[in-house]
């Protein structure tokens, strides 16, 4: 494999096949999320009353900040090849997932689930699919973290770049989901 040989510099998407592959994958994933978001929007009116009455905007906003912050820590981690910033990213991502889990637990205890009504169907599908992507991102981060700890020199720069690209994407999807689902209840 002859990726662009990097002498400490970051590879570019237009030259590196792994980064380009990840970028194309993300573009394709965007279409997937777009379809799910559009379904949510199409059914928004039917579920708006339930959403307003039951979604915990403030709490989720706090957990969302954790996820948004993790993009910043990831940028630092990539820039400096820092295991510590990577660990911070993982921790923030995990906090977000815990927050989402607690929101789920509360909604389910109130009788709102994917099968209860249209709101539950669209809410759990959209946020659940995003959650699964966060989880996948955490696995990638953990793999990078452990590889970096075992032998930092063997980790190619493109690995950092590729994982970061995917993590930023997961973050960006949440910006859309949070806007549509949570900020949407305020409108």
């Amino acid at each position, binding site marked *: 494999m002859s990726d662009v040989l990097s002498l400490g510099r970051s590879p570019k998407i237009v030259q590196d096949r792994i980064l380009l592959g990840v970028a194309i994958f993300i573009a394709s994933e965007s279409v997937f999320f777009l*379809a799910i978001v559009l379904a949510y929007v199409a059914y928004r009116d*039917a579920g708006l009353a339930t959403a307003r009455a039951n979604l915990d905007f403030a709490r989720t906003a706090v957990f969302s900040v954790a996820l948004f912050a993790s993009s910043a820590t990831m940028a630092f981690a990539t820039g400096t090849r820092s295991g510590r910033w990577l660990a911070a990213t993982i921790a923030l991502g995990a906090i977000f997932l815990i927050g989402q889990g607690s929101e789920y637990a509360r909604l389910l205890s109130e009788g709102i689930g994917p099968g209860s009504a*249209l709101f539950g169907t*669209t809410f759990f*599908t959209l946020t659940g699919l995003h959650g699964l992507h966060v989880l996948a991102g955490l696995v990638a981060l953990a793999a990078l973290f452990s590889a970096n700890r075992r032998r930092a020199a063997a980790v190619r720069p493109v690995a950092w770049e590729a994982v970061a690209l995917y993590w930023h994407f997961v973050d960006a999807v949440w910006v859309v989901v949070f806007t549509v689902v949570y900020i949407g209840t305020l409108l």
Partner: protein
Amino acid sequence: MTAVPLWVRRPAGERVGWLRTVDHKAIGVLYIGMGVAFFAIGGLEALLLRAQLATPEASLVDPEVFNQAFTVHGVTMILLAVVPLLVGFANYLVPLMIGAPDVAFPRLNALSFWLSLVGGIVLYFSFLAGGAPNTGWFSYAPLSERAFAPGTGVDYYILGLAVNGAGTIIGAINLAVTILLMRCPGMAISRVPLFVWMTLVTSVLILGAYPALTAALVMLFVDRQLGGHFFDPAGGGQAILWQHLFWFFGHPEVYIMVLPAMGMISEVIPVFSRKPIFGYAFVAGSSVAIAFLSFGVWAHHMFAVGLGETENAIFSATSMLIAIPTGVKIFNWIATMIGGRLRMTTAMLFAVGFIAMFVIGGLSGVSLAVVPIDLAVTDSYYVVAHLHYVLFGGTMFGIFAGAYYWFPKMTGRLLSETLGRWHFWATFAGFNLTFLPQHWLGAVGMPRRVFTYAASTGWGPLNLISTIGAAILLVAMFIFFVNLVRSLRSGAIAGDDPWDAFTLEWSTTSPPPPENFASIPAVKSRRPLWDRKHPEARDTG
């Protein structure tokens, strides 16, 4: 697993089994093998359908079996036969055509193939698990909801298509990156063979279209398994959402299946006309136009669902527009032949057959963009006829052209031209006999997907002709099968360049070595091999 003996020229000691191979050529052959196997299965399913429909009010199979058979026939032919065949050729040929040693991600390539295959096996496992899906290949909700399809068939459909689709998406990423980043020196994107161009455009289509299908499948899964209401009108959902998502995938899927075949005949026609392709830029550019437009035509499958006058008018216009770049291609192929010295080999026969049949499918396609005509004939046998003229008369003829053209590169042996001619003419006759009468059947009122029809309708004779045509197609496919087996064992030795061709894959051995080329080639035009053979009349492009 036995080692890979053929398809890749590799010293005995270094051979790896089919299960572990990551060589793009071996994976290409695996894909083609998968496509051939499922094409045979899907063909037998079609014969069952045709046998039942040969006479009115027949009871050869019961309606439940018939409904499973046409559902699985559609899914099989589209996702498990045609797409793997095309991806297989792309896998084998793209690196060779652009002078690369392999694809960008060889191991991911193997993953793509195995996911595609496992998806197909999951779908077919449904037969053992209580019944195959019986809701049609586009599985309209709410018929596909648990309330109306309580068996597990649709669940296997969801899982099978999702896994198969994941493989196809990963494969598209791989091919796109390969084409964008791994071209040999001098191989500008404006010089790549048209098959490579079409593969790149097809990859983009896959990446934009398949995720919509995956999203629809996820929603159907939520509905069926978690009690969701996406497509459940009783719970506030809309049946029509499924159709929007499905056809946003489904219509680009048509071009995913047609463009690579167009790429194949764009290689075959110039070589056997002894001329460069006419209007390379227009052939390539029209593909981009088709790809772009194909994401804006999906609702022409939905003119009868009551979207509204304005929506129908818009989608009618976009659907008509897409005929323009398609027509451009046909004119360019014919112009390529004009002034040439045509060698009417089997490959060329199938390529010409592609044009002849695709014109019919294209014209009937335009008629379906005309809303009032569509409202009369949609969901009838007219549509069945139309889609088979595009996908069989078009795509499969293209694939056969490609098979006769590249078989010698893949195996080192030529397919028999004598059997090839029989194969072509039997296919041509059988195909037209099967599908031409279906235009009339649809126009006079025979809906698609009926397991039988009343004798009083008078549809019997044309149906019988159609079934006879299908039987001839069976004979044609048998001839092809015999040709494949015999030529593999004792076909004439091909040599590196049996067709006096133009592109890089013919500059290496047949079959090529693991690394494809002894040294990475450098090119200066669109026809590097022509240049090498005719230094006095080099291309300037």
